[in-house]
């Protein structure tokens, strides 16, 4: 007699990580590249007078080339930062200050990351003017609206490459064409896109771009700001003053091990991008197809213009945080619901798509990655489907929906 053993039950290690938009695990190859720069080659890259400094400088130069290559830039156009938030601040505030004599108007979108939105708010407080473009139901901006928003005082358009919550990829080359036509600079937050999809600063016509290592299997605490050096030559005002590192645009001793890791991570992304994308998007599509078999499940944002590893799905009539609780010991995911916050406001990105609060409260964000496996996806499909069904049995809204009651006609007791 043979006892049937499901092999997957043994191979699958829990918990499963599907929150790769928040951060990615480090690739072991990256760690390997970094290690010697903690213990042996620990010099300061700015120490010009001894071998320790020379080694560090050489390693930084090499990493700068690796990073530049991934985005089709010149190494001289890479300014190392502490991450994308710093890059967003330096890029936007730096342009606002540097180009003050040309104008004070910036155009951005409502679905940008807080690092961009809060930077823009800061600029508004200090006398600048910011236009926040609404997005269409698919999450993309309307290019006509963008062009119409440009004024003689407009100095910068700041539109993200790909959205962190819904994975929607903006038409950057088209946005750039509009920016160029009007002599306006284009800044893009490339955090979610760089390393995942082909990004080329010249083909895409990007003037400034912030991105970070920890979203592409590199270490946390290191990122870069790309600043175009020709056609046109772009300059930013430093936001951190000091020893004049990074051609005066970002002072502070360079994080050599981090930068080395960042470089290696970029190199691996470049080499593996095609194969990774093929494998990951296949898993994502499978996950999505299976979960959409549940009734009243919807994908949020454009499915056509989207990162290959992201899916944001709303399961109507179940609440996101309640849903997460069904499996969050075993599956790491994010929810668009903000029941944990006192404000009870769901995701502003999902609301910007025109989603009702109920659907925004019912969403899950899946971020697959290089280390996601088929077994993990199978487990996830099963766990989520079961939890959705269980919670719908418990949901008064689901019962009403099933009885054919139009929920929008109910006078809910505001609370």
């Amino acid at each position, binding site marked *: 007699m043979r006892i049937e053993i499901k092999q997957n039950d043994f191979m699958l290690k829990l918990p499963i990580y599907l929150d790769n938009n928040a951060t990615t695990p480090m690739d072991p190859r990256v760690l390997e590249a970094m290690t010697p720069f903690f213990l042996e080659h620990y010099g300061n890259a700015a120490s010009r007078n001894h071998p320790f400094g020379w080694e560090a400088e050489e390693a930084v130069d090499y990493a700068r080339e690796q990073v530049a290559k991934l985005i089709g830039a010149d190494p001289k156009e890479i300014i190392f930062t502490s991450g994308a938030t710093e890059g967003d601040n330096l890029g936007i505030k730096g342009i606002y200050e540097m180009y003050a004599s040309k104008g004070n108007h910036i155009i951005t979108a409502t679905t940008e990351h807080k690092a961009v939105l809060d930077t823009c708010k800061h600029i508004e407080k200090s006398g600048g003017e910011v236009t926040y473009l609404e997005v269409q139901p698919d999450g993309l901006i309307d290019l006509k609206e963008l062009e119409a928003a440009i004024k003689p005082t407009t100095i910068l358009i700041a539109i993200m490459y790909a959205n962190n919550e819904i994975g929607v990829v903006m038409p950057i080359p088209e946005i750039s064409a509009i920016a160029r036509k009007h002599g306006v600079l284009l800044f893009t937050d490339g955090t979610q896109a760089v390393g995942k999809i082909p990004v080329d600063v010249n083909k895409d016509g990007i003037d400034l771009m912030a991105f970070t290592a920890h979203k592409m299997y590199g270490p946390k605490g290191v990122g870069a700001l790309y600043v175009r050096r020709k056609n046109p030559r772009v300059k930013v005002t430093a936001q951190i003053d000091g020893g004049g590192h990074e051609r005066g645009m970002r002072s502070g001793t360079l994080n050599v091990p981090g930068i080395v890791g960042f470089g290696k991570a970029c190199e691996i992304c470049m080499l593996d991008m095609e194969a990774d994308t093929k494998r990951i998007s296949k898993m994502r599509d499978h996950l999505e197809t299976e979960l959409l078999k549940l009734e009243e499940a919807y994908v949020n944002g454009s499915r056509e213009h989207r990162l290959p590893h992201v899916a944001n799905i709303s399961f109507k*009539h*179940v*609440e*996101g*945080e*309640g849903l997460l*609780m*069904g499996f969050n010991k075993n599956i790491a995911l994010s929810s668009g*619901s*903000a*029941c*944990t*916050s*006192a404000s*009870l406001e*769901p995701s502003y990105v999902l609301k910007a798509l025109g989603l*009702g*609060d*109920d659907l925004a*409260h019912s969403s899950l964000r899946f971020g697959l990655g290089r280390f996601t496996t088929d077994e993990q996806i199978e487990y996830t499909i099963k766990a989520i489907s079961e939890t959705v069904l269980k919670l719908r*049995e*418990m*949901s*008064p*809204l*689901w*019962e009403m929906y099933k009885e054919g009651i139009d*929920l929008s006609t*109910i006078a*809910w*007791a*505001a*609370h």
Partner: protein
Amino acid sequence: MAYSEKVIDHYQNPKNVGTLDKSAKNVGTGLVGAPECGDVMRLQIEVDDAGMITDAKFKTFGCGSAIASSSLATEWLKGKSVDDALKIDNMDIVEELNLPPVKIHCSVLAEDAIKSAINDYRVKNGLEEIKFEESVVH
């Protein structure tokens, strides 16, 4: 955010999930919250001639704490008189479930659902609706 053991237990093994006949004269139904706020609770009580709650059921759309609050409320309601049920305070629920401050609104909602169900029962049976003070924590 870590949930308390009791919240997890109610979430995993909710007590008294279900639906009572809302048109029955001895059933009181309370539907509170709003989908926009991320939680909706429906709590129902069945009352006998002596004014005792013989059954209670709930269905909740919401986070784990909201589900646990309503599950606990139904447990407490069963076997109580309607008058005693009115004494259930949201802070009792907070204490029993160790709800953190951001989840206090879940307990408030449960208290509101109890009161709303009782009023529905009272009105159906020719009794006067009780006017409650507005809950503070909303």
